[in-house]
């Protein structure tokens, strides 16, 4: 039963791929630059961010660090953080926005979060490319980058599991969308995306550990910067497991039932 929901995504891989392309295309269809906007926006945003942080504010991680170090530090956290928050923000309205699809067609709704996850991570992919370029330029690429698929898979599973729950709950409680986006907006200040342990001190850092999203960011950073925080990895893995089990259970229980409420 639990595996079914996950396997369904693989079984409908083609549908997921085409629907992702459709959503991406639909957003900018008819615009002069079309596809380019998908790349242009994150490209300019991220590049501007890196330049402003590194050269205008001259933010430094520590006294001895180079000009790009802080930008790299933030970007390495920002990429996974953005992917995750975007997916979670979208989740509550996934079914509501595709009501006719769910009501009139035999559509595998368990694949909806996957489509949304893929659609939402295009921008972050661009940011990741910029991040890689900057890291290469400053020669900070380590062998640990080879482990990158590991946190990506965990992140995807975590996002899926939570999205399944949010997606179903969002059908009944419309307020969920606003609530989720509000909470996620707040967590950016309570996560290590912009803050480092050296900057905020050990006490505040310990406080940050209570935010579950912290561990996601830390794990990605471990891979990017060649560090290892066993606690975060354990927690991230456990969170993912719980999210997937609860999510898959929810979706398999309510998949049919939800049609009555919309």
């Amino acid at each position: 039963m639990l595996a079914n929901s996950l396997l369904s995504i693989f079984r409908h891989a083609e549908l997921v791929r085409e629907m992702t392309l459709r959503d991406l295309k639909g957003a900018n269809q008819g615009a002069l630059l079309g596809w380019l906007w998908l790349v242009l926006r994150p490209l300019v945003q991220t590049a501007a961010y890196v330049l402003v942080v590194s050269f205008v504010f001259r933010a430094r991680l520590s006294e001895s660090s180079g000009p790009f170090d802080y930008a790299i530090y933030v970007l390495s956290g920002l990429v996974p953080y953005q992917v995750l928050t975007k997916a979670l923000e979208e989740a509550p309205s996934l079914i509501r926005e595709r009501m006719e699809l769910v009501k009139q067609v035999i559509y595998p709704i368990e694949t909806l979060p996957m489509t949304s996850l893929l659609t939402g991570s295009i921008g972050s992919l661009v940011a990741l490319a910029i991040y890689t370029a900057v890291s290469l330029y400053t020669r900070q690429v380590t062998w640990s980058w080879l482990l990158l698929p590991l946190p990506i898979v965990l992140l995807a599973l975590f996002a899926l599991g939570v999205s399944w729950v949010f997606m179903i709950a969002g059908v009944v409680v419309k307020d969920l969308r606003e609530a989720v986006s509000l909470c996620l907006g707040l967590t950016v200040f309570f996560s290590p995306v912009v803050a480092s342990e050296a900057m905020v001190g050990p006490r505040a850092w310990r406080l940050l550990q209570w935010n579950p999203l912290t561990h996601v960011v830390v794990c990605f950073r471990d891979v990017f910067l060649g560090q290892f925080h066993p606690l975060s990895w354990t927690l991230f893995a456990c969170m993912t497991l719980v999210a997937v089990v609860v999510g898959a259970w929810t979706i398999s229980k309510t998949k049919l039932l939800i049609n009555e409420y919309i």
Partner: protein
Amino acid sequence: MSDVVIRVDQVWKRFKLYHNLITGPIKEHVFFWKREQYYQEFMAVQDVSFEVQRGEVVGIIGPNGAGKTTLLKMIAGLLPVDRGRIEVRGKVTALLALGVGVHPEFSGRENILYGGMLLGMSKREVLRKTESIVEFAELGEFIDRPLRTYSAGMRARLLFSISMSIDPDILIVDEALATGDSYFVGKSLGRIHEMCSSGATVLFVSHNMGQIQNLCSRGLVLMHGRLIHNGGATEAVARYAESVLSAQQASLGQTGPRREAGRIQLRDAGLLVEGRRSSAVMIGEPCQLFLDVECQEPLEDVLFFVQVRSEKCPTTYAVVPTLGFVAEPFQSLSLPAGASRVLIDFPQLNIGDGGYWCDVGFFDRSLLWNLSYERCYCYQLRALSFSAVYRDSRYFGRGTMVELPMTGVRIIPGAGDTTVEDSRKTSARLQ
């Protein structure tokens, strides 16, 4: 092994209509020990059982809200079943609505891809069929323009063509064939015919009785969530017409724009076949039309008209030639005070197949050449309705309008030859 592909076994479906849509379902589960009802119950489908064999085409008819769509959705697996079981063997494709998932900015071709995939086809399958879909839709160069530039009819054409391209095991169609121009509807019907004869099992909901009779080998009639008929399509249509008729009779006199001078009241109207009241008549066979009227006082020189309107084309009508334009008007009637029955004999009913209704009016002879409905003694829209069917089921679905009476067929050799010589002869004659 029997070849049952759909087995519906004592299925019940209950909808919970929550008093409060948001807190209702939450309260129900949180306070599960409380007896309080947070919803009203609505039984959409009650104790329905039937089986469908492979290759059968089954029509489902019934008034709005009878549970047809709910039943189809349960069979398609879009709604859970409350009680009972539904077994389905094979891949179900459901056409419950047109235009699901289309994007106005995408071209027709792109929408074909996504629309097709949403109907359950693989990308390769859709791409393989794209050309035939484009051809079927006959949209010309518009196929590469954005959907938002289409007219409503063109849009319907495209969406139909997408729907019609599937090769399903089991096809579920829910009133999807109602729009589009008549040429295209005919084309779509042809395609459904093709699907039916290719061995697909089809469940078909329609309010068009002609379509049901044309396409279906069997008919189910649903009324208030209950299955009241499971048998031949023609009988199903008759059964449905009957129940609608009785509902109409119950409201006769209260509804409809009844503009009457009030001197004649139409109490009842209907058709008799072999002396028994019936709402389905056999084409080409005798029947009688009765009009039960009540007058407050005796009336002389009364004429009446019966306009027989076909569901296929409600704006034109056939007249019973009491108010004929070809034949001389029928002799006028003298109606006594109180109740009486006007009985009209038809030696042969030669109208085409399908559903009909009749508007009936009574008026004074003096109004004959300047008749207005307001000045009639009585004018009743939809005084009765019936369906005309062929006795021999082989003739179903001819879509006939009328069977024209003729006296014989002759062959005159050489006549009507349009060679040069012949035309010269004609022109010579013209001179």
